[in-house]
């Protein structure tokens, strides 16, 4: 496990917690803030930087306990995929999203993000 990733303190605010636990980024609660670009996006940027510095080929992002996400927050995930794509090939990694089975919005949202991210995004339903 990456020490850099493990050293990132959880982000907890407005009904959501994003934490790195055992090398997995876990979203819990409801993500519906007005301007996630001021909080969530910089937090994800730190995770991205730590992943790059650690040289990890793959990072798991568990959304199975995320009840809801508004479109402003989807932008944060889209940005994340774009950061990866802009890295040199040797530093790029795969975002492995884990979703909750039968939750329609997770399936539709992540499949659209996957179509943007190509080989950099993998979506898995269930653990």
């Amino acid at each position, binding site marked *: 496990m990456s020490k850099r990733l493990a050293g990132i303190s959880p982000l907890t605010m407005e009904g959501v917690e994003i934490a790195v636990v055992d090398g997995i980024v876990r979203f819990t609660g409801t993500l*519906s803030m007005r301007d996630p*670009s001021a909080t969530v*996006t910089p937090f994800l940027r730190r995770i991205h930087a730590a992943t790059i510095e650690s040289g990890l080929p793959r990072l798991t992002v568990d959304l199975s306990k995320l009840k*809801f996400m508004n*479109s402003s927050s989807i*932008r944060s995930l889209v940005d994340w995929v774009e950061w990866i794509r802009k890295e040199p090939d040797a530093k790029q990694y795969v975002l492995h999203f884990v979703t909750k089975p039968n939750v329609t919005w997770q399936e539709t*949202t992540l499949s659209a993000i996957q*179509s943007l991210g190509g080989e950099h995004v993998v979506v898995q339903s269930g653990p």
Partner: protein
Amino acid sequence: MGSSGLASDMTLFVRFPPKWNHIEPLRQYIDLAARGRGYNGTADKLNIVAQELLENAVKYGDPSSEIELELRFLESFKSGGIEIRVSNKAHPSRLALLDKEYQRTRAEPPREAFTKALQRTQRLPEGATMLGLSRIAMEATLTLEVNGDRVVLTARVV
């Protein structure tokens, strides 16, 4: 929050000022109302639709004008479902943009429209998305009307 009441056994009407902190309790209220009437299977879709409609009205509507929300349980309709209608006074400058986004959601199948909206998002300034309508269109049948200076967005979730 503004006034609310049960207009009939199938329609819920709420009028409220365009404040961000009203969105979450309203969404929860809608969720509870739907589940209370046995619409558990459509609750996830309804949550998405309600949130995006309310956010749209609060973010882009006239800040001095109240928002009207109407929730109808279409139990007398053969196809059933829930209709959610949000009406607000819009800035004239926003109407053309709203209509453009709306037409984009109608131009192709919902998933394709949403994926293209995601692609456009990457070219917008940080924090901007313009994803709301295409996201609603994936979960519901969406219509846009302009009545005078008021914009009415109606989504039907089945």
